[in-house]
């Protein structure tokens, strides 16, 4: 019941998709399109609250037990419920002006600002950690410098050869190496899918053990 049923569900859902993908069998194609695919969309949508639920649980506990820095949990829960109330209960969609105000003022700017911190850290990392200690790391650094200079108009203004070299590196060396990686990753994906389908891979069934 706790293992066999989930494995059967996996196998049946997967096999319907495999048959739908390769063969033209009317009722299976119809079943996949009319019922199976919408079922995935619906179930994923309804499950989307799990992350938020865990967030609420964690920060409610922080507040209840007055853990270190629990005051910030008020901020998190406050913003969460404020936007949720505006979007779900007050106006019912994301295009409503009041929700849009919170979204464009806070969410958009906070998201962009938090990730822009990476640019500063990148500078620091380049300066402190990237060292030409071996032939391989020297190759990485030299190619990176050519790619950076060649991809901006200033590089072309300095020397017309920079964009040509950058283009050659990207189109020949890089594309070829990525091709090799891509083929390897795809083969790995396929073998993993077979393992999932036949129940050899059971990592997703570990919950509760």
């Amino acid at each position, binding site marked *: 019941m*706790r*293992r066999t049923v*989930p494995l059967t569900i*996996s196998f049946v859902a997967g096999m319907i998709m495999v048959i739908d*993908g390769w063969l033209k069998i009317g009722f299976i194609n119809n079943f996949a399109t009319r*019922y199976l695919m919408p079922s995935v969309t*619906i*179930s994923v*949508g*309804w*499950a989307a*609250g*799990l*992350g*938020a639920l865990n*967030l609420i649980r964690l920060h409610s506990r922080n507040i209840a037990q007055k853990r270190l820095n629990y005051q*910030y*949990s008020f901020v*998190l*829960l*406050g913003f969460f419920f404020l*936007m949720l109330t505006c*979007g779900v209960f*007050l*106006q019912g969609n994301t295009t*409503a002006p*009041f929700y849009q105000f919170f*979204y*464009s*003022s806070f969410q958009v*700017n*906070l998201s*962009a*600002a*938090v990730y*822009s*911190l990476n640019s*500063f850290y*990148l500078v620091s990392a380049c300066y402190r950690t990237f060292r030409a200690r071996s032939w*391989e790391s020297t*190759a*990485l650094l030299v*190619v*990176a*410098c*050519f*790619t950076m200079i060649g*991809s901006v108009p200033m590089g072309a203004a300095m020397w017309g050869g920079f964009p040509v070299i950058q283009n050659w*590196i*990207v189109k*020949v*060396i890089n594309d*070829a*190496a990525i091709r090799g990686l891509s*083929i*390897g990753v*795809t083969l790995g994906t*396929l073998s993993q899918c077979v393992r*999932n*389908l036949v129940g050899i891979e059971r990592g997703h069934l570990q919950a509760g053990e």
Partner: protein
Amino acid sequence: MAGVQVPIGIVNALNPLSPWIGVLVTLGVWSFLYKENPVFRICEHAYVGSAAAHTMVTTFANNIKPGLVVDIAQNGEYWRIIPILLGCMIYFQPFRGYTWVSRYPMSFWVGYNAGYNLTLRVAMPLLTEVRRTMLPIFVTNNGRFDLATSINNFIFTGVVTLTLAYFLFSMNVFKGRAGFMIRTARLVLMAAFGAGFGTGIANYVSLLIGRFDFIMSDVLKLF
């Protein structure tokens, strides 16, 4: 479900504040570059809270609500209650003793996606990539031998082969002189990662450009 309309006057009064809030939160986040401080922590927590809420709201507005109102209530497609229940089973995950219930939807999604990938959808890109790797080594252009393209094609095919050899075969196969292949493959891969590093830097610099452009152009109207 239609919701309560907030008076437009309130919204109109608040909207001019929006860009300035954007500037304040950006500076608040950047204050972390000097040192850890409460303003940054507030911005950080506000970000997590608002991001989680936005995902919930968009999912509700575009997926859950139309599903309930249109598909089930209006169109009478009651079978859709089954996947709703299946999706809701995932909420048993935090409850000890009932966690196994959450395996049901998880296996459904894993099975579906495994089946999805075991079709032409993944095979076609793979085969196309393999086919486009088999480039001609002797290229002629208008009846003349094209040396540059021929060399490029040779290097391209060689690098793909080296990369595959490096990752797919055991290192023990390449001992002695054959070890040269592995060393070359490593060098070529590092060069390729260098190109990735270069374009990655462009990506990170653009994150900063985006913020400065917002502050200086969109809000302060300096240019």
